[in-house]
């Protein structure tokens, strides 16, 4: 397989293609007829997925170095370039994105009833921006993709969302924007200080990583600016209140992408930038204990608040706060197992929570309600939906044999030595997770079928099985045989841990090989 890919020069054009395909499809959708918008988008996202899947074989798991690297001049006088690459941390974020997108299109098929062309074009632009965020190795380029992503999401929530869509969209936008503006200030500060010290003004990640010592006197402030932007995105307690609003108001695909991919940008930001650039801050015991404490609060707090939500979508939204708390604990425990576990939870959460939002959307399409109390006993009426909802919930509560277990187990196992008390509290999250999801399941699927409106619900259609089937397959696959994924993450996770702990100099190498843009 890898020879075949090599023979078509896959490694040279894959990243370009992954960004170009959705943008090109977006142009076709915009210019094409409205009635074909869905089909064109589906074709585009499927092509994107097929192209991306080659990464699975082409990626070399034995090295932590950036692979598929590419660099082109963009604004040379300011040291800005299109520098991209993929390592074990970003690999699965990219695959998660390309995997989720065709499903999101299929999931929007009937849910979105009007203005297809702009909706699907925005979805495609969003795809390109997300890929861009995960491949960018130039801080300016990263920032551009990071902000570009906001705009389509803002419109998707604000135009196609629920009754309170404008409030949610504006809140989402401003909240995230405040954080990212601070990050921009930090990026510009780093750029100019390092430029002044070394004489090379460049936004290149490799250059900045190699010379970050020149801004060590400002490390605390710079870290804070990055961390705030990422913490809002994750979201870390107490910066999470934009999330329930945005998730509940967004259309199904919007919620799926928000939860499945957008939240991962925050965690990814910590892994790619905040940790490697500021190891002295990251190793500071006070900072560590603050972040770990916030992560653990998120786990328990998110679960408890999720437990009492009357709205199923909101329940899932708060459960995200809980899951991402595990991610933070894993990242900040800085062991190979915990970091790998955190990355795996990022993948798992995309799959399971994505599936939960799809299911919430399917229930909403049938009954035009998301209130848990409006359902009850529907397992008799919609057995297929009930089986899948149960299975996905079990994955979300981390039942061994499903994907959810592997991630949580590795995070907790890796964190226990570093933060025993925090880990024990975090582990109790498994009890609350069971409580909130099983209680919701009972009130929706089981008990008496006492609402006549539920008696005529139709079970899943073929299209809906096509949406959920791949997610369910991943849930079992990752639960039973995660080794191939873990092996692909391992080198990069290990290098990150060693680099931050000061045991090897840096991860990305001095600068991109064969690229002379200064």
């Amino acid at each position, binding site marked *: 397989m890898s020879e075949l890919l090599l023979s078509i020069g896959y490694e040279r054009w894959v990243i370009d293609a992954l960004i170009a395909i959705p943008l090109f499809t977006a142009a076709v959708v915009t210019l094409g007829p409205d009635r074909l918008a869905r089909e064109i988008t589906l074709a585009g996202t499927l092509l994107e997925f097929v192209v991306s899947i080659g990464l699975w074989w082409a990626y070399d798991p034995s090295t932590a170095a950036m692979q598929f690297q590419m660099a082109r001049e963009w604004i040379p006088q300011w040291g800005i370039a299109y520098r991209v690459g993929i390592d074990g941390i970003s690999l699965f974020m990219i695959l998660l994105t390309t995997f989720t997108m065709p499903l999101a299109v299929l999931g929007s098929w009937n849910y979105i009833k009007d203005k297809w062309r702009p909706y699907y074009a925005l979805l495609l632009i969003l795809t390109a921006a997300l890929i861009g965020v995960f491949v960018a190795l130039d801080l300016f380029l990263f920032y551009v993709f990071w902000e570009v992503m906001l705009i389509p999401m803002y419109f998707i929530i604000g135009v196609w969302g629920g009754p309170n869509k404008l409030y949610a969209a504006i*809140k989402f936008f*401003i*909240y995230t924007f405040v954080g990212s503006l601070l990050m921009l200030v930090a990026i510009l500060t780093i750029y100019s200080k390092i430029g002044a010290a070394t004489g090379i003004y460049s936004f290149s990640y490799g250059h900045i990583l190699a010379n970050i010592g020149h801004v060590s006197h400002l490390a605390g402030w710079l870290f804070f600016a990055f961390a705030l932007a990422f913490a809002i995105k994750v979201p870390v307690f*107490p910066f*999470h*209140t*934009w999330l329930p609003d945005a998730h509940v108001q967004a259309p199904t695909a919007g919620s799926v992408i928000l939860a499945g991919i957008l939240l991962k940008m925050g965690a990814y930001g910590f892994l790619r930038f905040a940790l490697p650039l500021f190891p002295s801050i990251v190793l500071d015991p006070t900072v560590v204990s603050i972040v770990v404490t916030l992560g653990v609060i998120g786990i328990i*707090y998110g679960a*408890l*608040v999720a*437990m*009492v*939500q009357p709205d199923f979508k909101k329940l899932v939204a708060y459960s995200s706060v809980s899951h991402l708390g595990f991610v933070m604990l894993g990242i900040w425990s800085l062991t*190979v*197992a915990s970091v*790998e*576990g955190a990355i795996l939870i990022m993948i798992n959460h995309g799959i399971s929570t994505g599936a939960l939002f799809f299911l919430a959307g399917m229930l909403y399409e049938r009954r035009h309600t998301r209130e848990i109390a409006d359902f009850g*006993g529907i*397992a*008799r009426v919609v*057995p*297929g939906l009930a089986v899948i909802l149960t299975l996905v919930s*079990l994955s979300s509560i981390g*039942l*061994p*044999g499903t994907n959810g*277990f*592997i991630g949580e*187990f*590795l995070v*907790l*196992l*890796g964190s*226990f*030595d570093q933060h025993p008390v925090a*880990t*024990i509290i975090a*582990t*109790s999250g*498994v*009890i609350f997770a*069971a*409580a909130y999801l*099983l*209680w919701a399941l*009972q009130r929706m*699927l*089981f*008990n*008496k*079928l006492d609402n006549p409106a539920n008696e005529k619900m139709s079970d899943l259609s073929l299209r809906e099985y096509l949406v959920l089937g791949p997610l369910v397959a991943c849930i079992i696959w990752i639960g*039973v*045989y*995660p*080794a191939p994924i*873990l*092996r692909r993450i*391992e080198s990069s996770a*290990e290098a990150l841990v060693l680099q931050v702990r000061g045991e090897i100099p840096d991860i990305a190498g001095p600068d991109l090989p064969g690229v002379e843009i200064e």
Partner: protein
Amino acid sequence: MPASVGWVWLVVLLPLLGFLANGAISFIKPDAKGAVSAIGVGVLAAAFGVSVAVVSGLAGAAHDAPFIVTLWEWMPVGAFHIDLAFQVDQLSAVMLLVITGVGTLIHIFSTGYMSEDPSYPRYFAYLNLFIFFMLILVLGSSFPVMFIGWEGVGLCSYLLIGFWFSEKANADAGKKAFIMNRIGDFGFLIAMFMIFGATGSLSFVEVFEAAPATLALGGTTVTLITLALFLGCTGKSAQIPLYTWLPDAMAGPTPVSALIHAATMVTAGVYLVARSNILFALAPISSTVVAGIGGLTALFAATIAMKQWDIKKVLAYSTVSQLGFMFVGVGVGAYAAGVFHLVTHAFFKALLFLGAGSVIHALHHAYHHTGSHEDAQDMRNMGGLKKFMPWTAGVMWIATLAIAGIPGFSGFFSKDEILAQAFARGHDVPFFYVVWGMGAVAALMTAFYMTRMMIYTFHGPNRTGEKEGSHLHEVSWVMTGPLVILAIGSLFGGFLNLPAVLPGAGWLHHWLEPITEGSAAFVGEVHLAHNTEWILLGLATVIAVVGILGAYRLLKPQNLVPAKDATPETGMQKVLLNKYYVDEIYDAVVVKPLMWLSRAILWKTVDEKAIDGAAVNGSANITRFAGWFGTRFQTGRVGTYVFFFVVGALVLLRTMVR
């Protein structure tokens, strides 16, 4: 490795295939009951056949070391490396035979018991899935692989307790079981993290090999590890304080109660302690806790069983109590004795549950015929059933004599072994005398409440109802057949491990020696003087006889009235009938406050008012206010502008002049 041992994966795969096939049938052709029965029972019978081959291969193998059958790499992460692998050794062999053997019988019984249920394929799918996970639990070669089974059986238990999920009570019971089990699983997880921290591994062979060297005898680490493991056991095996889910679990179909909530799953905790015996042997404090909790649970549950009217609730509390006995065994260090009681209990308790199932099935039929809605599980609606159901009555008496501990029956030997070991080790740990005392009293109560159950169910006048009486009859052979086989097991199971004073003693004990020899150095072999052993055997007999005769003399089944005419209980009777109100106490102390905290404080106050209201929207409001304040100066009136101009000029002038 003997070739047949290498086939162990097939034992696990067969029920999984059964689950997939029956699961598919439940969607495609739910009324294909013949196919469902053939698949559901067939895979189990085949799994039993393979298990026999595996175990005979093991028995014929020359060396005692466990055989590891690796399937694939599961979690490779740096230094941490766990394979999906099975371990075939003397302990897992015993469990393998019990699970597939008793499991097959219960599957056969179910084809009769559930024959009229509309969700027949779903039932067998769940049952097969349960066996699959239970086999992983006992075959897993490491703590995490065992944990797959450990939580998987909990899932199946949840699904099967809530099998008739349209009743809220059933769905409630399933959820309660799962959540209480998860509290225990929390302990299991913490234990795994600590074990990994201490020994750098989680596979049984490596951990148990490293344990004596890396973990100090009686040290804090090993004590905490074993206490955390035991928390897991109290959840899975329904011990104080996490036992309350098991009686509620009776909401599931009765064969499920026999299979999951008596014979197999609930004994997983005992299996875990026996499996980790070296760790518990290194932690005397934890072992004492295990024995103490076991003794207390045995006694406490027995008192509740004395006063229940629901035939399944009697058996449920009896199970909790008998599991307590097993923990006494493994707690005092008599690991083989604990496993021995696990095996005999699997026979007689499965028999009792299935027999109760037959009775319920018969009563249910009778009530169904007349359109009555009386409780088919309430013993006050039974009585005199031996006339209608002689086979069921006969085999259930065998099981009752076994659990009561009449000499010759299996339960006599296994229970006596546990109590004798507790007594013998009381010499070193005086607290074990107390445990022995609790066990002896619980044994007396066991004989009493079991006899009570039999008398009320099968003897005295019939109270089912005038019209219903004529519809009562023995159940079909697919249901009585398994009962007879289990009765044979209940009769002769004791010969597996006869007391030391008898010829051919201790076979199971010797069989399990490769498993327990590592801990023998720490807990020691205890041999009672023959005199003492004879006295204890005699005492056990007296206890059983007194309990049975006491119930026979004291209880007056002719005075009972059917449930609908009964007067409510009062005083201590009422407290016992309501199980000491432990459920209500848990609800008031844990559940309600937690819900209040989550809703009123965390959600409504912290999230909505403080974070979102004050901080997030508050900052938006400040911005809005600043904007509003700024616009006050932009009135468009010249007078205002002149006023501010003059004020500004004066301020400037003042500062410049100074």
